[in-house]
């Protein structure tokens, strides 16, 4: 299981990863559109650099959750979490319902709003490259090794090692280690990265599990409702019969 570790203290904000991503996926140049969220990501930009005061540059991309909400939400399994850790998208299955965009807690999936045949657009961790044993295009392009790629356990170990070595430099937290059941894109740095997601509450559940209870209740609810209605039908029918008989009896008397 692979992961990307981004050390934001090393990022110089050169946009090489953005350019490499565009080249690797053949994404067209983007033009600001009315429907873009103002964070640099768009249907033509699968990764972007968010700059923060004090020369802080944070690369934004799909977090490739271990328990992805988008995968659990997609009604046709067009979004799939692979063994490599990458959450990939199969356009041929997609129906365009955009439920993944509602479900994603990070607001990552973007849409081809201007096209008559639109698809969801998001980072696929260069799945084609990593199954060939290569590194994602953005990792290769990074001139300062601010973003690195490897097995998730190794990346976690590396992150903790860096924090341990320079505790004054880093915040003692690996963003993405435990959030929402764990993410495959980890961040360490000297500033708080809460802004990359929605305001996280301490009791934020693992998202796919929120619907599990309700979805598991579906078959019992179907059968149960049938049984209840059957019972009701029997009861009402019986009451009708008894009433009719009582009436008959009264008539006879």
């Amino acid at each position, binding site marked *: 299981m692979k992961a990307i570790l981004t050390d934001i203290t090393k990022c110089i904000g050169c946009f090489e990863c953005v350019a490499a991503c565009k080249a690797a996926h053949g994404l067209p140049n983007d033009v600001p559109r009315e429907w873009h969220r103002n964070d640099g990501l768009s249907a033509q930009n699968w990764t972007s650099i968010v700059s923060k005061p004090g020369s802080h540059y944070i690369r934004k991309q799909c977090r490739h959750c271990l328990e992805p909400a988008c995968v659990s*939400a997609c009604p046709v399994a067009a979004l799939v979490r692979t063994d490599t850790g990458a959450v990939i998208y199969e356009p041929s299955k997609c*129906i*365009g319902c955009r439920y993944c965009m509602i479900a994603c807690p990070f607001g990552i999936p973007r849409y081809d709003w201007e096209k008559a045949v639109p698809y969801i657009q998001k980072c696929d961790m260069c799945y084609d490259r990593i199954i060939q044993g290569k590194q994602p295009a953005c990792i290769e392009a990074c001139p300062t090794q601010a973003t690195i790629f490897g097995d998730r356990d190794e990346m976690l170990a590396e992150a903790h090692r860096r924090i341990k070595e320079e505790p004054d430099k880093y915040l003692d937290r690996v963003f993405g280690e435990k959030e929402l059941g764990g993410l495959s894109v980890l961040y360490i740095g000297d500033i708080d990265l809460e802004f990359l*997601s929605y305001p996280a509450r301490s009791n934020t559940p693992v998202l796919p599990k929120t619907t599990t209870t309700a979805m598991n209740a579906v078959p019992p609810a179907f059968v149960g409702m049938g049984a209840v209605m*059957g019972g009701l039908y029997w009861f009402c029918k019986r009451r009708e019969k008894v009433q009719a008989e009582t009436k008959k009896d009264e008539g006879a008397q």
Partner: protein
Amino acid sequence: MNRVKTFKSILWAITGLAVAFGTVRMFWGLGAVSNLSDTTPWGIWKGLNVVPGIALAGGGFVVTAIIYIMRRTEFQRYTRITVLLAFLGYITAATALVAELGLPWMVWHPIIYWQHHSALFEISWCVILYLTVLFLEFIPVPLEHTGWLSSIRRFLTKYKLVLVFLGVMISTLHQSSLGTLFLITPEKLHGLWYSSLLPILFFISAVAVGPLMLILAVLVISALYRQPLETDKLAKLGGASAIVLAIFGAIRLIDLLASGKMGSAFDGSWQAIVFLIEFSVGVIIPVVIMSIGRLRRSPAGLWTATSLAVIGLGLHRANCAGIMLVRTGPIYFPTIYEITISLGILSAAIIVFLYCVERFKMWEMPWEDAQEKPAALPQFDRASEVWLGTPRIAGRTVYSLVFVIALAVGVVAISTDRIESAGVRDATVIPARGGDTLFVDGNLDGYGVIFAHEEHVKREGGNQSCVRCHHMNLPLDKNTECAACHRNMYSGADVFRHDWHASPNGGNLACGQCHDQDLERTAATATTCDECHKDMVPVDTRIAIEQYIAPSYADAMHGVCIECHRQKALELVEKEDLGRCAACHTIDAPQYLPENVYHMFRDTSFNHVVMPPITDANSRKEEAY
């Protein structure tokens, strides 16, 4: 025109407009007609037609269960109307869903690609199955009218109970699953609406409001066609629904109290105000009206209670489906096209509904005046040799005329601008500033490129080299700003000035000098710019001028710089990075800049290239995070 005809003409007009806009949506994509965005992926079609529509069509399973399972045969005459209402409600929801899907022709995919963790997958299946059930429940009515396929009709009528059971069981699933849809957004949905009980709340409210919607439909029909009302029966049905509605309200309140969120209902935020309105309009007022016997049995009371309950439920669903989701961008408001399509789908359904009410035996209630019966055929009176009654053809003529006119208006009303450059932000371009070292930031967003103009002049060969990059200046003018013609950041601009060419003080040209006499006088057939302005396209320039449309500022700048930079990157080994984006789009100001320029563009707190304070640009940047 009588009121029925007027009402139907309005419906046809809205439908016509919606068909025109819907066609545009199908061929030019969602961006051309809607304000949907990456931050608001679901809009009015989901929030008005799909999610509330399915709940309001819930009467189909509730009322049939009351009649056939609970054996309350006194409501039997409403069976057909409630089944029709449900059938059309689901058709409406399905149509809106198809309009909203990015790839509507793939709508059948959930049948073959299974993903049983997804609430939407389950809803798709249930809606497909329940539409089939409703179709089978309703089809005997038109068959009875025509007299065809009587064996199938008899079979379906005989086994109606099976369909009723299936209807109840399937509806239980998807009415509740509509609530499950939003369980996955605990961070996004506002606390007053998010609850782990959402599936149960959605189901109970659908059970409550379904019959109220039926009562509303009956009230509308009776008002439209001046039919007598059986208020006591409607009151009985309404009273029972009000009890369920009260249970819904109670669960909602207890849930809020138990989770400790009740306080936020009174914190004065706009969400809290919407919640209070929704709860009082949708639950408290209808329950109070329905619990007072005298009000319940009066048409006015029924009208108020049912319409308020329907509005309240619609608001609750719309809040869950979009209004109360956390915003990360500008506030979504639907375009006029979206609203029209939304209303058009409803109008088309109402037209079909009224058609069925007029033509088929929807209930045994007699028309008060046989002459008023809309579908009554005119009769030929042999004695006087005239036709009696209104000819049906008149209605059709009016409706088709209205429809066609609306269609035409719709086609004209959709702006071609929206189709061609849908969603491109209009950004006026301003000239670069800075002297020898220019700051090129055409749209004033604070992000730009520092361009060492002086250095480039030196490298290109001094004063003779202007034409290498600056091309086609206006006559006798050597420093026209790029922004004068490349006016928009992202879309091309027409730079041809027809009046200047024709004016006696300008070009003083006769028509025939540019336009061929035999051809239509358009830009396409006229003489091209470079045929006359040979001197204005310098020999040594890098730029090819093809037509009178100046490309956008971004394209023009990139066009000038990139080709040359890439070429130089190949030639000069030590500068292999020259062709990359970051060679010019630096974040930190390059150190080689003269000191004064460096300070001018360098904001100490941000430590990267920004312009001196420009409020608009700064506020836009803040919004991003």
